C-alpha cells in the first residue's frame, strides 16, 4: 500500500499537464472538475498510505520510495524520493483533503472568469509542489516544493494581473520569500558539509553527532527560511498583500497549507533542534509568540474581511512556532491541522460573503448578513468559535496544548500567548458581528458618497451664483449703455430745440423739418428712457436672483454639515437621508438598495459545511484526558525521536490553565459584544490607528526600499557607467589621442588587428629560426 505514495503528488502533476495541453478545450467547468478529481485521487491515496503505515509496528513507520536519482555530483547525491512517516502522512492528509474541498469550492467561485482553466492549472501545480515539499525524502526535494509553492503563490496572487496592486503583491510575496529561501539554501549547504548527506534519514540519524554550533546555525538558518514562508517577523509583510489573489487561493495557500511549511520543516528537523544550543529554539518561540501578539493587534483595526484573516493567520502561525520552539511539536502539528480546518473555513466563508456582496470586502458595509446567507453565516460562526478557543471546538484543544507547554517553559511566553488569545477572540468576534450581526448597512449611504453628493450640489449651486452674477454684470452694462443713449438722445433733443428756435419761420420747409426732428428726438429720448428703466429692472432682478441662489448655497452647505448622514460606520442607527428625496440619491446608493445579497451555490457551501464539521470535532484528534485519547501524539511519536517536550504541569494545573484560557476567550468575545452589539464603547477606543497601520513597519520598509535602497542601487548603476566604463573609454581616448576618433575606427581596426596577428606570426617564426640556428 505504501508503494502507491508516488501517486499522491503524481496525480496533481498529471492534472497540471493535462490542463496545460488541453486546458482551453476543457474549459469551464471541466478543467475544474478534472483538477478536483485529481485532488480527490490524491486524498484517497493518502488515506490508503496512512493505513499502510498503521499496519506497521511503531518503530518501522519510516518508508522511503525512490523514483530516480535527481542531482548526482561526486559524493553528493539526491533522489527524487519520498519519505512516508507519521509526520508527512499527517501533512498530506490535510493538504489533499482541504485542497480537494478548496478545488471544489473554486469551481463555483471562479465561475465566469476568462482564465478559468488557467486557475486550475496553477492550483494543481501548487498542490503538486506542496506535496513534494511534504513528502520529499531529502532537503532538496523539500526545497523544490518550497520554491514551487512560492512560484505558484506568485502566479496566483497576481492572477488578475491587469491591476498593478495585484501584480506588485505577487512580486512582493516571491521576493520576500526568496530572502527566507536563502536561509534554507545555506542551511542545506551546512547540513551537507557537516553530515555528508541531505537525506532526512541520514540527517535525523546523524544529528546526534553534530557539533552544537553547527546544529545551532542550521536551526537559525532554517528558521530564516521558515520566517519567510510562514510569514513571521520580520518577513511577514508579504502575507497581508497576498490577499490580492482570488479568495480560494488565500484559503488554500495563504492559510491552510503553504504557510505552514516552515512549521513542518522545523518539526521535520527536530533532532537537529534537539542538538542546538537552547537559545536557538527559544529564538523560534519568542519570535513566534511576538509575531502572534503583534499580528493580533493589527487584526483589530482592519476593515477588509480578508485582511483580518490574513493577520490572524500570521498570528496563529506564531502560535505554532511558539509550540515548536518550546518542543511541543505535537501541539504545533495539532494546531496546524485544526487551523487548516477553521482558517480554510473562515477564508472560504469570507469568499462566500464577498461573492454574495458584489465583491465588496469592506466589513463596514456588511451587517446582518446571516439573514441572507444562513449557511455561510452558520459555518463561519463555527470557525469563529473554533479560533476563539471556545470548547469543545477544535481550536480550543490545540491552542490549549500550546499554551500549556508555554507555561511549562516560561511564564512570560504563556502570558503573551494568553493575551494574544484574548485579542484573537476579540477581533474574530468583531469580524463576525460586523459581518453577520448588527444592522444591514449595505444599502446605507456612505460617508464618501455623502461628501461626493453634497460637494456636487454645492458646486452646482455655486455655478448658479456665478451665472446670476454674470447676469447682474451684463444687466449693469445694459443700464450704463441705456443711460448713455438717453444722454445722447437728450443732447440731440436740445440741439433740435435750438435748431427750431433759430429756424426762420418764413422758411416753412426748414421749420417743418426742425419740428419733425424735434419730435423724433423727443421720441428717442422717451425710448432711451424706457430702455434704461428696463435695464434697471433687469439688473434688479439679477441681483435678487443672486441673493436667492446664495441662500440656496448656504442652505446646502448647512444641510451637508448637519444632516446626520455622515456617521462613519453606522453600527446602530441608520444614516438620516430623509432630507433628500430617494430619486436624488447617488446612483450607487440606489443600486445597492436594489441589491440582494445572496447565498453561494452548493459547490461553495458544501465545502463550508464539511470544513465546519471538521473545525467542530477535530479536537478529538488529541484530547488531553489520558494517553489513549492523545491519538495524534501517539501517532507522531516515530517522527519525533523522543524530542517532544514533556509537560510537567500537574493535572490540576492544566485544568486551571484551560479554565483561564476559556475565560480569556470569553472576555474577548464579551468586549466585542459590548462594542459592536450593544454599543456601550466606541469602536475607536480599541481600533487604534497604529494598529490599522500595522505599527508602520511595512510602510517603513517600503519607504526604505523606495528611498535609500533605490538610491543605493542607482549609485552603483551610476558608478558602472561613470567610473568603470568611463575609465575604459578614458583609456581608449588616451590611446587614440582624441575622443571623437574612437568611434571612427571601425573596420580600420580589423586591418590593424590582422597586421598585429601577422606581426605575431613573424615574431614566432623569428623565434623559431633563432632557436633552430642555435
Amino acid at each position, binding site marked *: 500500500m505504501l508503494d502507491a505514495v508516488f501517486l499522491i503528488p503524481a496525480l496533481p502533476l498529471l492534472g497540471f499537464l493535462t490542463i496545460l495541453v488541453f486546458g482551453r478545450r476543457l474549459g469551464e467547468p471541466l478543467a475544474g472538475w478534472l483538477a478536483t478529481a485529481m485532488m480527490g485521487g490524491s486524498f484517497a491515496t493518502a488515506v490508503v498510505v496512512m493505513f499502510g503505515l498503521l499496519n506497521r509496528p511503531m*518503530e518501522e513507520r*519510516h518508508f522511503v520510495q525512490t523514483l530516480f536519482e*535527481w*542531482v*548526482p*555530483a*561526486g*559524493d*553528493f547525491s539526491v533522489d527524487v524520493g519520498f519519505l512516508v512517516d507519521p509526520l508527512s502522512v499527517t501533512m498530506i492528509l490535510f493538504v489533499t483533503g482541504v485542497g480537494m474541498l478548496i478545488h471544489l469550492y473554486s469551481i463555483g467561485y471562479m465561475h465566469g472568469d476568462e482564465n478559468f482553466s488557467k486557475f486550475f492549472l496553477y492550483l494543481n501545480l501548487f498542490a503538486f509542489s506542496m506535496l513534494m515539499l511534504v513528502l520529499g525524502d531529502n532537503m*532538496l526535494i523539500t526545497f523544490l516544493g518550497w520554491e*514551487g509553492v512560492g*512560484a505558484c503563490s506568485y*502566479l496566483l496572487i*497576481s492572477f488578475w*494581473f*491587469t491591476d*498593478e496592486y*495585484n*501584480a506588485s503583491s505577487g*512580486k512582493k510575496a*516571491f521576493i520576500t520569500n*526568496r530572502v527566507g*529561501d*536563502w536561509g534554507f*539554501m545555506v542551511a*542545506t*549547504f551546512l547540513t551537507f*558539509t*557537516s*553530515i*555528508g548527506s541531505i537525506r532526512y534519514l*541520514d540527517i535525523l*540519524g546523524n544529528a*546526534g*553527532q553534530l557539533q552544537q554550533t553547527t546544529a545551532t546555525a542550521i536551526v537559525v538558518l532554517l528558521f530564516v527560511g521558515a520566517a519567510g514562508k510562514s510569514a513571521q517577523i520580520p518577513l511577514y509583510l508579504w502575507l497581508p498583500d497576498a490577499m490580492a489573489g482570488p479568495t480560494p487561493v488565500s484559503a488554500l495557500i495563504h492559510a491552510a497549507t503553504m504557510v505552514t511549511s516552515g512549521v513542518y520543516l522545523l518539526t521535520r528537523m527536530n533532532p537537529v533542534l534537539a542538538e542546538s544550543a537552547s537559545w536557538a529554539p527559544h529564538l523560534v518561540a519568542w519570535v513566534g509568540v511576538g509575531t502572534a501578539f503583534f499580528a493580533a493587534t493589527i487584526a483589530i483595526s482592519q476593515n477588509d474581511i480578508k485582511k483580518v484573516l490574513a493577520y490572524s493567520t500570521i498570528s496563529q502561525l506564531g502560535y505554532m512556532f511558539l509550540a515548536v520552539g518550546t518542543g511541543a511539536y505535537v501541539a504545533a502539528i495539532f494546531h496546524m491541522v485544526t487551523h487548516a480546518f477553521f482558517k480554510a473555513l473562515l477564508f472560504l466563508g469570507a469568499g462566500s460573503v464577498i461573492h454574495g456582496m458584489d465583491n465588496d470586502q469592506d466589513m463596514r458595509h456588511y451587517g446582518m448578513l446571516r439573514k441572507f446567507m444562513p449557511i455561510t453565516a452558520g459555518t463561519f460562526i463555527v470557525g469563529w468559535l473554533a479560533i476563539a478557543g471556545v470548547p469543545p471546538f477544535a481550536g480550543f484543544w490545540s491552542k490549549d496544548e500550546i499554551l500549556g507547554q508555554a507555561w511549562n517553559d516560561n511564564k512570560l511566553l504563556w502570558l503573551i500567548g494568553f493575551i494574544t488569545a484574548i485579542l484573537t477572540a476579540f477581533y474574530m468576534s468583531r469580524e463576525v458581528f460586523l459581518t453577520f450581526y448588527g444592522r444591514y448597512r449595505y444599502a446605507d449611504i456612505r460617508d464618501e458618497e455623502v461628501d461626493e453628493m453634497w460637494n456636487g450640489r454645492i458646486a452646482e449651486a455655486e455655478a448658479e451664483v456665478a451665472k446670476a452674477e454674470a447676469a447682474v454684470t451684463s444687466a449693469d452694462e445694459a443700464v450704463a449703455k441705456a443711460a448713455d443713449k438717453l444722454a445722447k438722445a437728450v443732447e440731440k433733443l436740445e440741439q433740435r430745440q435750438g435748431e427750431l428756435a433759430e429756424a426762420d419761420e418764413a422758411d416753412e420747409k426748414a421749420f417743418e423739418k426742425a419740428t419733425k426732428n424735434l419730435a423724433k428726438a423727443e421720441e428717442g429720448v422717451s425710448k432711451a428712457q424706457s430702455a434704461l428703466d428696463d435695464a434697471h429692472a433687469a439688473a434688479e432682478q439679477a441681483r435678487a436672483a443672486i441673493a436667492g441662489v446664495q441662500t440656496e448655497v448656504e442652505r446646502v452647505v448647512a444641510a451637508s454639515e448637519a444632516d446626520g448622514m455622515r456617521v462613519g460606520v453606522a453600527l446602530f442607527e441608520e444614516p438620516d437621508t430623509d432630507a433628500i428625496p430617494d430619486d436624488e440619491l447617488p446612483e450607487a446608493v440606489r443600486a445597492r438598495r436594489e441589491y440582494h445579497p445572496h447565498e453561494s451555490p452548493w459547490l461553495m457551501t458544501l465545502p463550508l459545511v464539511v470544513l465546519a464539521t471538521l473545525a467542530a470535532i477535530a479536537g478529538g484528534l488529541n484530547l488531553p484526558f489520558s494517553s489513549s485519547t492523545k491519538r495524534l501524539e501517539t501517532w507522531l*511519536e*516515530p517522527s519525533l*525521536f*523522543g524530542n517532544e517536550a*514533556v509537560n510537567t504541569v500537574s493535572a490540576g494545573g492544566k485544568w486551571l490553565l484551560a479554565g483561564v484560557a476559556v475565560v480569556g476567550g470569553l472576555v474577548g468575545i464579551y468586549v466585542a459584544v459590548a462594542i459592536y452589539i450593544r454599543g456601550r464603547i466606541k469602536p475607536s477606543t480599541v481600533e487604534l490607528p497604529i494598529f490599522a497601520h500595522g505599527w508602520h513597519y511595512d510602510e517603513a520598509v517600503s519607504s526604505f526600499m523606495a528611498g535609500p535602497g533605490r538610491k543605493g*542601487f542607482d549609485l*552603483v*548603476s551610476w558608478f*558602472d557607467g561613470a567610473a*568603470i566604463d568611463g575609465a*575604459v573609454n578614458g583609456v*581608449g581616448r588616451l590611446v587614440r589621442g582624441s575622443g571623437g576618433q*574612437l*568611434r571612427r*575606427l*571601425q573596420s580600420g*581596426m*580589423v586591418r590593424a*588587428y590582422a597586421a*598585429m596577428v601577422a606581426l605575431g606570426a613573424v*615574431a*614566432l617564426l623569428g*623565434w*623559431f629560426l633563432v*632557436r633552430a640556428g642555435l
Partner: protein
Amino acid sequence: MNSLLLASASGTGFPVLTAIVVLPLIGAALLTLLPATRPDLVKQVAVLVSTAVGAMSIWVLIQFETGAAAAGFQFVDHQSWISSLGISWTLGVDGISLFLVVLTGVLFPIAMIAVDEHKDLKSYYAWILVLETGCMGAFLALDLFAFFVAFEIVLIPMYFMIGKWGHGDRAYAATKFFIYTMVGSALMFVGILSLVFLTASTTGNPITFDLQTLAHSQALSTTTSRWIFLSFAAAFAVKVPLFPVHTWLPDAHTNAPTAGSVILAGVMLKLGTYGFLRFGIYLFPEAAVYFAPALITLGVIGIIYGAIVATMQKDLKRLVAYSSIAHLGFIIIGMFALNTQGLEGGIIQMVNHGLSTGALFLLVGMIYERRHTREIAKLGGLQKSAPMLAAAFMVVMLSSVGLPGLNGFVGEFLILLGSFSAHRWWAVVAATGVILAALYLLWAYQRVFHGPAEGDNATMPDLNVKEGLVLLSLIGMIVFMGVYPKPVLDRMEPAVDALITHVETNVPRFHEPTANHLPTVNLADLNASEGAAASEGSGK
C-alpha cells in the same frame, strides 16, 4: 606520452569533430557563391548547414562513452599541421566540452531560424557560419595554436554582426567589443608563446603546442606559471566577462542583432569560462589554486554588482545583458571551488545560461520586432495581448532565477554547494544573488507584462507558430535539464574528476574541498531507544 594519450582514444572512423569545425566554414564559402537575389535560398542553405552541424554534435553526444573509462578525450582527430613548429590539428571532446559543443550545435540553427534578418542576408549568414566554426574550434581544439586561432576568429564575424546588423550606437559597441577582447587576447598570445617555448627550453623536448603534453609536463617554475596564468586569465576574464572588465558586454549585447545577442550570450561568453577550465586550471593547476580566491572574489562581486546594475536598467535587453554578468559570476565561483560539485555546477550552468539567456534574448527580440522599442517604461500589460509570449517569458525567467525543477537551479545549487565546501563565506554572500535575481527579473516582468495594456501594447500580436516552436524546443531543454540532469552530470563527471586529480597531483598539499561524511545510523534503532527514553519521562 603525447602520442600515447592520443592513440588510446583516436578512432579511425569519420573525423566527425573536424567536420563539425570545418563544415560551417565550407557553408560560408558556399553562401558567397549563391545569388544575392535569392535570400530565401541563402537562408535555407545556411540553416541546413548549421542543422547538419547540430545533428553531428548530437551524434557525438549519443556516441559519447560514459563511465570512469571515459575520463580522457574522445573522437580525437590528430593531423599534423605545421609540424616544424609543433603545431598540430588536434581536436577532441571530453565531458567538459561535450555539452558546450552540443549547445553550440543547437543554438546556432535556433538563432538562425528564429530571427528574420532583412539586410544583406548573404554576408549575414556567412558571418554566422564563420562564427560557428570559431566557436566549435575553440571548444574542440587540443592544440594551443589551433585554439588561439579559433578563439580569435570569432571576433571578426561578431564585430561585423554588431557593426552592420546592430542597433543604436553599433559602431561604438562593435569597436569597444573588439578592442577589449583583443587586448586580452594579445596578452594570451604572449602567454601561449612563453609557455610553449619556455617549456621546450626547460624540458629540452621539441617545441609543441599540444595541450595535453604541456599540461602534463608542468615544467615551469611556480612564479613563471603564475605570470603566464595571469596572461591567459586576462583574455578569459574579458570574455566571461568578469568585473571590472565587463563594460563591453552591455553595449555589445544591447546593440547586437537578436541572433548576435543569442550567440554572444549563449555561446561566446562560455569561451571565457571554458578557457579558464581547459587552459587555465588544466595547464596551470598551481596558479589556479593560488589565484582562486581572487577570481572567486571577482565572481562574487560580479554576482551582486551585475544584479544591482541590472535592476536599474531602463532597457529590457540591457537588463538581460547585465544579468549575464551575475550568472557568469556564479559559473566562475563554481569552477574555482575546484571540487566536483562546483566544477560540474559551473559546467552545467554554462549550458543552462546558454539556454535561458539565449531564450530571453530571443523573447526580447520578438518584443522589439513587434513594438520597436525595448524601453521598459513604454511596455506594459503584454500578458493580456500576448499570453503565449508572456508564458514563455515566465518559464524562461523562472529558469533564470533558479527555480527548482528548471535547469538554472541545478547549476546554481551545485555551484553554491561546491563553493560552500571550499569558501564558506563567499558562498553565503553569493547566495544572496538568488534574491537579487528574483528582484530584477520579477520587477521587469511586472512592468512589461502585468498591469493594464494601453495603445500599441494592447494590440501586440502573440507568438506565431515558428516562434512558438523555437521557444518550445528551448523550454523543453530547460525543463529536461531541470528534472533529469543526471545523464548530463554523469557524462561530465569522469572529466571533472580527472581535472581535480590533475590539480591534486600537481599542487602539493591541495585536496579537493568536500563534505565531512558521518557514518549512517540506523533510524529504527535510534527511534526505538529514544522513544523508549521519552516514554519513561526523561524528556529531552
